[in-house]
């Protein structure tokens, strides 16, 4: 029910993102989704890729600090109010979101929301109970 996400530490220096994506491209690793969280001094790049282990080894050997964390991928229809519905449920279920980001399928019919909750088990239980479709890592890679 959980998807593995790669997090990479980045100093705010020009060209760091380009370097990471180039390394991944060299290894034929496909990025499905990404987000960058930043402060004045540093940033955290979060990636959903089709080969987590290979991506981790590649980036680590290039000298980056890499972490693997579990996130939850929720599929919703790509239409007005899709995100609002999920967030309403999250609020009603009193789930606490640490961060989130989203991407849209190639087909354009559905969107995928990536969530990191402070209580992941509780979140999975709540979202499944309220009828949301939670994607696995394989499903995301197959999209």
């Amino acid at each position, binding site marked *: 029910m959980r998807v593995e996400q790669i997090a990479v*530490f*980045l*100093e705010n220096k020009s060209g760091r993102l380009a370097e990471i994506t180039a390394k991944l491209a060299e290894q034929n690793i496909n990025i499905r989704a990404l987000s960058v969280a930043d*402060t004045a001094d540093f940033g*955290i790049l979060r990636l959903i890729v089709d080969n987590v282990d290979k991506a981790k080894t590649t980036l680590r050997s290039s000298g980056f*600090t890499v*972490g693997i964390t579990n996130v939850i991928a929720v599929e919703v229809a790509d239409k007005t109010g899709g995100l609002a519905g999920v967030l309403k449920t999250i609020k009603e279920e009193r789930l606490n979101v640490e961060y989130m980001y989203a991407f849209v399928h190639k087909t354009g019919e559905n969107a995928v929301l990536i969530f990191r909750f402070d209580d992941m088990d509780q979140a999975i239980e709540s979202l499944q109970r309220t009828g949301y479709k939670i994607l696995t890592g394989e499903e995301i890679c197959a999209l």
Partner: protein
Amino acid sequence: MKSFYDAIKTDKQEKVMTLYWEEEIETLPRVGLESIQLKRLQHLVARVYKTVAPYREKMDAAAVKPEDIQSLADLAKLPFTVKEDLRESYPFGLFTVPMDQVVRVHASSGTTGKPTVVGYTKKDIELWAGLMARALTLAGATAKDMVHNAYGYGLFTGGLGAHYGIERLGATVIPVSGGNTKRQITIMQDFEPTVLLATPSYALNLAETMDTLGVDPKSLSLRVGVFGAEPWSENMRDEVERKLNIKAVDIYGLSEVMGPGVAMQCLEGDKGMHIFEDHFLPEIIDPDTGEVLPPGEKGELVFTTLTKEAFPIIRYRTKDISRLMYETCECGRTLVRMEKVTGRTDDMLIIRGVNVFPSQIEHVLMGTEGVEPHYQIVVNREGNMDTMAVEVEVSEDIFSDEIKALESLTGRIQMDIKDMLGVTCKVKLVEPRTIQRSEGKAQRVIDNRKL
């Protein structure tokens, strides 16, 4: 007719006439001075040898007895005293008198959190007050002055050391201490102090705050500033003089020797500080070999106290780099002058008047779980203040996918450093292997201040 003091005050930067606190000793021909020094040195060495075991042991190991001191040159026979000796005898082991005769202690920060402690008898405090009054007189201050003392009061020798000297001089002391800058400016406007005592960087902070508040320094009564406790450049002196519209002079001192008032710049000579040689005997040594260098050569400054009771010190290596100038000064004083301290033999940093050793930072970092021993300290002068940033490499142990986790880590380290050193610094996380690796001695400090 203008009074004598008014003439000095109105004729701000100009020389009116040289004022002495103790004219006879300050202008004594060097032969006379040296004979006093030798007598005092012999007496001191005999007393210390008798009363302080660590000194006696070191002298015995060097096979030197108090009777061997027959001339000032024989001083070179005595072993050096270093900061570590003070730490080993922490807190009171090097005191020469029973504690019931010690009326005050001061302390400076130490590398592992343990400060070095010094003590004073009643007579020492009186001596210090007198020497500080002499120092203020060199800056042209008199009993008619009001002195704004912005040195920190507390264990630091700056605040209280200056305070007693100002009172001894008969001037009025405003014991304002450091901080609360806006209030300090209000006090300057309302009380009309004529002399400012502060660290140079704090003086510039005052100037900047005046600018922000729209206070014109020319509207204030300040005439002269006595600045010390941190290294500062001639360029910074110009800046302080221009921004505060005052004459800025140097004072030198260190707690191990006494505190402020060991040496002081006069208004007449444009270079160097007169060492109060009747009480402190200076030497310049080669920091690598320990050899005494000839007059005029640059090296490490070493002090022997000649008259202090509770905490005398023999051949204390200050680690300050300077040189000694024996020519008689324009002011008429025969007391040797030491050049403005241009550097230190070790890597101790002085940040806003506080001693900081890289090893102290390391101590905090290494006490934080998951932090790698790869760090660097970057010191800058931003505007008028010293800033210190500690760069820490992010290992996988401390890395998190959440910003708040990393920020709470940097916040915790910052707080620990503040608690231990009393200095605010910024902790910056950097990517692994971005800090240059040591090829022998690690370069822990990048000091970008133009000193």
